[in-house]
C-alpha cells in the first residue's frame, strides 16, 4: 500500500480531490463534512440517550408499581432526571399542593393533575427530541448542497475544456471526479441522517407513548386515592 496521501489523479483520495477542487466546491465539501460529523455525533448521542432513557423508564416504572408508599418512593427518586420520574415528580408536587388545604375540589384536582403531568410529559418529549430536526434538515438538504457543488465543479471542468481546447478524457476526468465528490459527500451525510431521523423519531414516539401510559396510570392511582380508596 502506498504511504500517506497518494496524489495520483487515478486514485480516489478524498484529500487529493478536496485539494484540487475549486474554492466554492471546497466550501461545499467542508460544510457537508461538518454536517456529516454533526450527523454522526447526533446519531451516537441519540442512540445512547434513547437507549438509556428507555431502559431507565422501564426500570423506574417497574419500581414505581412495586413501591408500597408513594411518599417514600418520591423521596428516593426526587432527584431523578428520567422523563417518567419527572412526570411522577410533577404529579406528586401538584397532588401535594392541591391536597394541602382543608377542602378538596376533587374534579379540579383531577384536572390539574392531568394538566400538570401532560405538561411535564410534553416538556420531556420536547427535550428528548431536541436536535432531531437537525437530522431531518441534513437528510433533506445535504444532497442538494452536494449537487450544487457538483454542478459548479462540472461547469468549471467544462470551462477548463474550453480553455484547454482539448476534450480528452484525461483533461475532463479529474475535474468531474472532484465535482462528483461533492455529491458523494452530500449523500454520505444525508443517507445516515435520513435513516437515523426515521429511526429516532420512531424511538421518541415510543417513549412518548410509554410516558403517557405511565402518566395515565399514575393519574388513575392519584384519582383513586382522591376518592379515599387505595
Amino acid at each position, binding site marked *: *500500500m*502506498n*504511504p*500517506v*496521501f*497518494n496524489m*495520483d*489523479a*487515478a*486514485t*480516489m*483520495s*478524498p*484529500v*487529493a480531490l478536496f485539494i484540487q477542487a475549486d474554492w466554492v466546491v471546497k466550501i461545499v465539501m467542508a460544510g457537508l*463534512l461538518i454536517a*456529516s*460529523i*454533526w*450527523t*454522526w*455525533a*447526533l*446519531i*451516537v*448521542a*441519540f*442512540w*445512547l*440517550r434513547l437507549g*438509556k432513557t428507555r431502559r431507565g423508564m422501564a426500570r423506574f416504572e417497574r419500581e414505581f408499581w412495586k413501591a408500597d408508599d408513594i411518599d417514600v418512593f418520591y423521596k428516593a427518586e426526587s432527584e431523578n432526571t428520567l422523563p417518567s420520574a419527572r412526570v411522577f415528580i410533577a404529579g406528586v408536587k401538584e397532588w401535594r399542593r392541591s391536597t394541602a388545604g382543608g377542602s378538596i375540589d376533587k374534579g379540579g384536582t383531577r384536572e390539574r393533575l392531568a394538566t400538570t403531568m401532560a405538561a411535564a410529559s410534553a416538556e420531556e418529549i420536547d427535550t428528548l427530541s431536541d*436536535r432531531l430536526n437537525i437530522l431531518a434538515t441534513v437528510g433533506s438538504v445535504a444532497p442538494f448542497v452536494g449537487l450544487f457543488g457538483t454542478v459548479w465543479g462540472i461547469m468549471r471542468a467544462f470551462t477548463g475544456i474550453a480553455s484547454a481546447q482539448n476534450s*480528452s*478524457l*484525461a483533461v475532463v*476526468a479529474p475535474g468531474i471526479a472532484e465535482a462528483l465528490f461533492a455529491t458523494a459527500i452530500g449523500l454520505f451525510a444525508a443517507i445516515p441522517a435520513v435513516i437515523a431521523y426515521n429511526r429516532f423519531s420512531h424511538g421518541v414516539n415510543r417513549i412518548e407513548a410509554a410516558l403517557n401510559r405511565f402518566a395515565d396510570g399514575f393519574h388513575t392511582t392519584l384519582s383513586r386515592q382522591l376518592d379515599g380508596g387505595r
Partner: protein
Amino acid sequence: MDRAEKVGLGIAVVGHIVLFGLLSVGLLSTPNPEKLQQHPIEVSLVKDVGLEATAPQAVTPPAQSVAPDQGAPEDAAPPAGAVTEPQPAPAPVPPTPAAKPAPAKPAPTTKPAPAPKPAPVRAKPKPAPPAPEKAAPKAAPAKPAASAKPTPATPSKAKGSGSKAEATTSKPRGSRLGPNFLEGLTDKPSTSKSTAPVAAKIDARALASIQQAIARQIQPCADRQVNPGPGANEIVTVLNLRLNEDGTLAATPRMVRQTGVNGDNDRYRQRVVDLGVAAFKGCSPLKLPAEYYSTPAGGWNNINYNWQLR
C-alpha cells in the same frame, strides 16, 4: 450539549478521520487498473466522404492528337457531352504548302489511328471538313498567307494563346509524320469514355429520381398523346421498360398491370397502353445516370414506370 452528545461528537470525528484517512492512503482504491494512458491513433482528415462505397470513376481520356505541332496551337472546343474534359491537343496544322490547314482531331479511343498510308503529296489543297475550332478550315492557298501567325521558321517558339496550361506550354514538334497522317480520322470530336462503375446499390431515393427523370423526359411526348375519352386518364398503367445502356429502348414497353379501370373507361385500356408506348418511343433515348443502369439491387435497365394520361 450533554455528555451523550460529546461522546457522539468525539466518536463521529474519530470515525470520519479514520475513514477519510483510509481512503486517502488508498485502502479502497482500485489497484490502478490502467493509468489513464493516451494511445496515439492516426487520424487522417478527409474532406470528401463517400457515404456509399463506390469505386472511383475510371475515365479514359480521349486519344491525343499526334499531329505535328509546328504552329501556334489554339484551344480546341471541347467535345460536347463528354463527361470529362478531354484533352485534345489544340494544334492546328501550320499552313504549309503541302498540307492543308486541318485541325487536329482527337482520335476516338475505340478506333486506333490508322497507320498513315503512303500517299502522294497533293499540291492541290483539299477542302477541309468543318471543325469545331475557330480556325477557319478554309482551303489554304498553296502559298501560306502572310498573316498566318505561326511561321514555320520559328516553330520552336510556337505557343498557344489560349488559357489552357497545355496550350500555353511549348509543344513538341512532331515533324516526322507525313502530311497524310490525318487520313482515316474522322472530323467528329472524340468522346472521352467514362466507364462509370456500378453503384453499390440503388436506394429508394435514387429510384425515385430516376422515375422523375423518365417522367420529365417523356413529358413532351406524353403531352402530345390525345386523351381518347372520358375516364381514360384515370387508368394507371405500369409499363415495364427494357432499356439499353445508351438510354434507347431495348424492347417495346410492356404493360404489367393496370389500375383505375372501371366500367366507364374499360374500353380505353389498350389505347392507354398504346399511347404510353408511343410516348416512350417518341422521346427515347432517355438520359439517365449511368451508374444506376444495372446494380445488384436493380437499375433502370429493367424498370417499371407508372404511365398515366394527363
